[in-house]
């Protein structure tokens, strides 16, 4: 800070201001004399030239901070020479000094960029200093402004995004080079005053116009709006546009400005990516399906393997049974014949008769086991004929009469009207005899044996198709269901899964062969029926048999 007047303090650089003076010979008063008064205030002349042409090289070097140019008698000619100097105005500020106050020279001086116009006769050192200070400051501000404008120009000239400023009528105020390139309109300046209507289809121009009018009317911004447009050559152009209200210094909306970025390439990549993703997810789905199929096949294979193991087991049991039958039945025949012989001879004695009766019973028991074994393991043939299942059930009840104690056992038959079933009568009869026998033996103290039948259609809903039924029947099949239930203690849950295993029994030794239920299952399987064993909620066990109904058609 340097004090230049008692009352005024202006900011000043501490550096000396270097002056270049152009002054024709003989001009008075001399500028040097005036400046000399200001040396103490930080001004120094570093060059002096009699005319503009002589100053050429020095001006070009731009070593001076400020130029004082005396334009001489022919003021306009002097100004013309100054105007031809590229370094002046733009980079080095200059002050025009005239000999007398001339309106035309003053105006022209300002027009060509002079910071000030001074008349030599009235010039005093303080006035000159003030002018020079003002000029330097203005030049500094202009340089600052030019910096901003250079930045704006850089944006407008080089950014590939389309940048545009428009007035309230959507006419271009300024556009980036990318806009004019895109429109093939040459110089961006050539677009000023024009609008989208001059370059785009009416639909597109109207849509843009409407968008911009909305921005103008309510000041709302449009940010990153994605536009899709079909180009004349059929390609689809994608873009993202941001538009904002353009305001004057009072904040009034005077137009719009915006940036539009071409997204076509990005969008095409995105579409490609989406297609790729779809292909991937389709492939993935195919894989999952294949995997699921594999899993099912694997499960099937596993089941087949289990069945094969089971079949192999049964075959061995069959061979064993045949061998055992022969080797055991002959001695049994001897014992039974012996018992008969002895009872003929000593049957008169009561005790002996009892012993012989027990002997004969033991033989019968042993023979029953072997018969069961043979029944279970024998190769099976079935002869399927249409039968009334209810009739088979009634006759099977008759066959187990011996097991039914009239005072304790109640037999409850609830046989509905049902279609005929295709079965081997003898074998199905055995199924019911086995189930009835089991049920009755499960209720030694008495209870109710109930048998109910009903017609049903496999619907595929819930338990109807669950469990074993689903593997044998298909949705829509007409079936006949028979349920054999008892009121005994039921089957211990942990044993439910084993009831169909050969030799599995819960009865005391001598009471069961452990083959009855396996025979039931193998017979049911032979006639494409199923059997499921479970405990009733109300107590006791229930066997559910499902037979395929005879096809009426």
């Amino acid at each position, binding site marked *: 800070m340097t004090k230049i007047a008692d009352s005024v303090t202006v900011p000043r650089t501490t550096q000396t201001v270097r002056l270049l003076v152009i002054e024709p010979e003989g001009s008075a008063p001399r500028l040097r004399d005036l400046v000399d008064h200001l040396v103490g205030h930080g001004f120094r002349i570093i060059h002096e030239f009699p005319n503009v042409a002589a100053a050429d090289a020095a001006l070009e070097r731009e070593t001076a901070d400020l130029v004082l140019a005396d334009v001489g008698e022919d003021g306009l000619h002097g100004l013309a020479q100054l105007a031809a100097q590229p370094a002046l105005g733009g980079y080095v500020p200059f002050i025009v000094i005239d000999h007398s106050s001339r309106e035309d020279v003053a105006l022209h001086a300002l027009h060509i960029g002079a910071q000030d116009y001074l008349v030599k006769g009235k010039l005093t050192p303080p006035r000159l200093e003030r002018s020079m200070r003002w000029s330097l400051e203005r030049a500094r501000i202009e340089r600052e402004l030019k910096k901003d404008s250079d930045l704006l120009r850089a944006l407008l000239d080089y950014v590939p995004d389309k940048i545009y400023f428009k007035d309230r009528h959507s006419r271009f105020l300024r556009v980036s080079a990318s806009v004019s390139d895109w429109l093939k309109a040459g110089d961006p300046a050539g677009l000023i005053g024009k609008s989208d209507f001059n370059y785009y289809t009416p639909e597109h121009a109207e849509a843009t116009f409407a968008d911009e009018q909305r921005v103008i009317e309510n000041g709302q911004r449009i940010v990153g709006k994605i536009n899709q447009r079909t180009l004349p050559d059929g390609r689809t152009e994608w873009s993202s546009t941001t538009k904002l209200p353009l305001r004057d210094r009072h904040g009034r909306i005077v137009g719009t400005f915006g940036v539009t970025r071409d997204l076509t390439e990005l969008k095409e990549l995105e579409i490609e990516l989406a297609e790729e993703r779809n292909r991937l997810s389709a492939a993935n789905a195919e894989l999952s399906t294949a995997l699921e199929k594999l899993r099912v096949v694997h499960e099937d294979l596993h089941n087949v393997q289990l069945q094969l193991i089971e079949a192999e087991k049964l075959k061995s049991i069959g061979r064993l049974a045949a061998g055992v039958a022969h080797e055991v*039945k*002959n001695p049994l025949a*001897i014992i*039974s*014949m012996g018992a*008969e012989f002895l009872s003929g001879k000593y049957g008169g004695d009561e005790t002996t008769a009892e012993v012989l009766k027990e002997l004969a019973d033991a033989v019968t028991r042993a*023979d029953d086991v072997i018969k069961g074994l*043979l*029944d279970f393991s024998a190769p099976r043939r079935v002869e399927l004929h249409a039968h009334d299942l209810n009739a088979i059930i009634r006759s099977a009840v008759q066959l187990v009469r011996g097991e039914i104690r009239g005072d304790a056992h109640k037999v409850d038959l609830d046989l509905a009207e049902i279609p005929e079933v295709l079965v081997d009568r003898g074998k199905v009869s*055995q199924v019911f005899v086995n189930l009835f026998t089991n049920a009755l033996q499960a209720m030694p103290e008495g209870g109710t044996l109930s048998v109910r039948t009903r017609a049903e259609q496999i619907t595929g809903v819930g338990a109807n198709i669950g469990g074993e039924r689903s593997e044998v029947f298909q949705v829509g099949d007409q079936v006949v269901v028979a349920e054999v239930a008892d009121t005994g203690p039921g089957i211990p849950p942990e044993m439910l899964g084993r009831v169909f295993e050969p030799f599995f029994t819960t009865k005391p030794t001598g009471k069961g062969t452990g083959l009855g239920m396996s025979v039931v299952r193998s017979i049911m399987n032979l006639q494409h029926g199923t059997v499921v064993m479970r405990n009733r909620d109300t107590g006791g066990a229930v066997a559910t048999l499902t037979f395929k109904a005879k096809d009426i058609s």
Partner: protein
Amino acid sequence: MKRILIVDDESAFTRLLRLTLESTGQFQVEELNDGLRAVEVARAFMPDIIFLDVVMPEIDGGDVASKIQADPELAGIPIVFLTAIVSPKEAGNETDIGGFPFLAKPVSVEAIKKVVEAHCA
């Protein structure tokens, strides 16, 4: 009195069966434990009915039956198999083996009597 020939390699069985049948006083029984001698013994005894075991060493019941039927003097004699390898249930509804009726062991005297009555009217 009906004449019965029993051919079975189980001598204990044939003896008990003979003793039991004879004890009824209605039958005259000859027992044979060697199937190879069946035709020879049958010719000598000339039974009204022959009971044949199926599984025997050296010769099985089927072959013995063929030989007996092939003999002109024995051809008309009814043959009933006695067997330990099948039960009626196992054989299904069939009542014969190779065209011959059969009884499954162990067998009761009652069953034998019925068969004899049925075949030797």
